[in-house]
């Protein structure tokens, strides 16, 4: 009996030593989603109502990691529809500016305005969740991904740890073997479920296998589904001056 207990203790200690922490899991998942160099990527956001494609928005996101904060700075340039082409949104921690080339006006926007729209700017930005959230490992689960394939995942709860966090709380399911994000749930300040998101279409992009599609389901009206498609990941010399409002009138793709 004592030998059994010793063996069990050794096995448990080994498992503990090898098990990843919640923070390590989230950080590894960030590396799956985000290239480790400044880059640009094209996005297509299509809204579906009852399964029918409705609206479509195109944009290009330029991202660069701030070495001091370890969080990404993002410049979003709208490319479609034509009425919005050329508009820019700058995200640099608490400095968020919207620029309209038609009026040449730069307007400072609030964090709440990031969440306007089914797929908000906050959903498509390059972010390090490990920086903005305090994760807690809830357990291991086998779930279905967006293609109805079974995935063995870690189930984590992430609470906002900084004022820059887009959501107050979210849940994440991250595949155990690959650290690929599979599913996420996003919650409002009041704890109400806002949306569910599914990552799919993993492809080799800019030095890693990354999700190239995100399916977002509105939790209040489940007939509203948004499909975000990333393509054309490309390393880019993203310059620091791009992230200052005075540069926005001169920025061009």
């Amino acid at each position: 009996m004592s030998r059994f207990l010793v063996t069990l203790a050794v096995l448990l200690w080994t498992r503990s030593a090898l098990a990843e922490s919640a923070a390590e899991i989230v950080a590894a998942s960030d590396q799956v989603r985000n290239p480790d160099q400044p880059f640009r990527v094209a996005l297509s956001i299509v809204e579906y109502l009852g399964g029918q494609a409705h609206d479509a928005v195109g944009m290009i996101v330029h991202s660069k990691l701030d070495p001091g904060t370890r969080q990404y700075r993002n410049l979003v340039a709208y490319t479609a529809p034509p009425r919005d082409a050329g508009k820019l949104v700058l995200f640099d921690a608490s400095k968020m500016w919207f620029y309209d080339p038609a009026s040449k006006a730069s307007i400072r926007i609030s964090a709440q305005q990031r969440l306007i729209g089914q797929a908000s700017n906050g959903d498509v930005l390059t972010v390090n969740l490990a920086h903005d959230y305090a994760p807690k490992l809830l357990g291991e689960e086998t779930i279905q991904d967006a293609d109805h394939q079974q995935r063995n995942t870690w189930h984590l709860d992430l609470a906002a740890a900084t004022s820059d966090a887009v959501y107050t709380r979210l849940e994440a399911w991250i595949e155990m073997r690959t650290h690929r994000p599979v599913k996420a749930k996003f919650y409002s300040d009041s704890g109400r479920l806002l949306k569910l998101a599914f990552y799919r279409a993993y492809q080799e992009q800019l030095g890693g296998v990354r999700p190239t599609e995100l399916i977002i389901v509105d939790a209040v009206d489940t007939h509203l589904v948004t499909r975000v498609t990333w393509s054309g990941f490309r390393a880019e010399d993203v310059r620091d001056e791009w992230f200052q409002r005075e540069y926005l009138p001169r920025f061009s793709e």
Partner: protein
Amino acid sequence: MWWLLAALAAVPGDDVDLIPRAVTAAQATAPQAEKGASFRARWFVENALSASTEPRDVPVPYPPSLASRWQNRASLDASLSWRPANPLVLTLSGRLNLFAQDGVSFVSPDTIRANLREAYATWQPISGFSVEAGRINVREGVALGFNPTDFFKTRTLVDQSSLDPSIVRQNRLGTVMVRAQAIGAGVSVSAAVAPKLASPPPLTESNPIGIDPHLGAMNGAWRAEAVLGFEVADLSPQLLGYLEEGRSKIGLDVSRPIGGAVVAYAEWAGGPEKSLAARAADSGKNTGTLPQNAPIVPPDSGATSFRNDVAAGFSWAIAATLTLNAEYHFHQGGFARADWSYGFSHPADARQLWYVRGYANDQQEPMSRHQLFARVAWPRFLSRDFEVDGFAFVGLIDGSVLSQLSFSDYLSKDWTLAAFISGNFGAPRSERGSFPQAATLTLQITRYF
């Protein structure tokens, strides 16, 4: 036992069943192919038909041109950008308008109007430093309804359907200038010099063939501006200095988020200048619109003193899509209550009073010293393709209101249908109530390419 095994084998799939098969089965929508970086064009065609109410009785006689019952504007608008070689970018932007208006012959100097907004070259020899030369629309300020620090805004507005300050500047003419800008880590510096190229024209001018660069309006005097932007305490302040004979100023604008839903902002500009009425009188005399012996109306010493302008307010993201802006505007050189009382008590001075009003509009200044501004933007109002916006200027001296409600229907990615309903409300002897037309309706359709 079989039921336990079945339960264990079942994998939660409820969430993923929410995804319609059509979504995952659809071909991945390739984002718009990246266009060659050398040339970009954005253009649209637009038609706007406006109709106004019958002129009402007002205490001060008004110019006949204010009583137009209807107007139709058809426009072709284009913005082009070309990079012929890496450090050089050429920008061209403008609009061609075709007008038809009540009381004006269709074939007249005002039938066709071409607005050249911008035509300039940008040279960026090294990262963070650029030089620009040509006609450039330089826009400063952080407020919506009034921008004291936007020193190059004067005499730039042309041909608009909407009175919304957020929209009215979309067809704003640039100023011919040379401008240099350096942007570093958290700081930026720019300097601009605009030469005098022509004498200032009257407020309303029309070229015999309708194609007029309006050089005298934007370049009627030597002007210079320097701007320093930096980061401190999350305020993103900008310090501005402006030089122009009789209107030199310094300015400051700041903005800061408060919590997750509010952004507070403020602008201030101050400098030695004459009152609005005195400057309008000078302008009228210099351009031949008013006789040389015309008095200042309302009476004013014409003295120069240090005067301040302020715009302070906040934006508030109230709900999922609703944004409210509220601002207070202070224009020290503007009309006080006594000035309005004088104007309404002296109808013989009506012509000059209306000239002052036109001058203030041309300078993009408030008429009165104190006013409030509020604006609501509500995209996805009742429908994902429908937007409602509204604004109001409220005079704090007499309580009169200029307001507008606009409805935009995004028919498709290429077509937008919009309607603007604007109104002037107030007592007959008030700033807004004294306008002859109480309300105007504009229907506008736009096709983007």
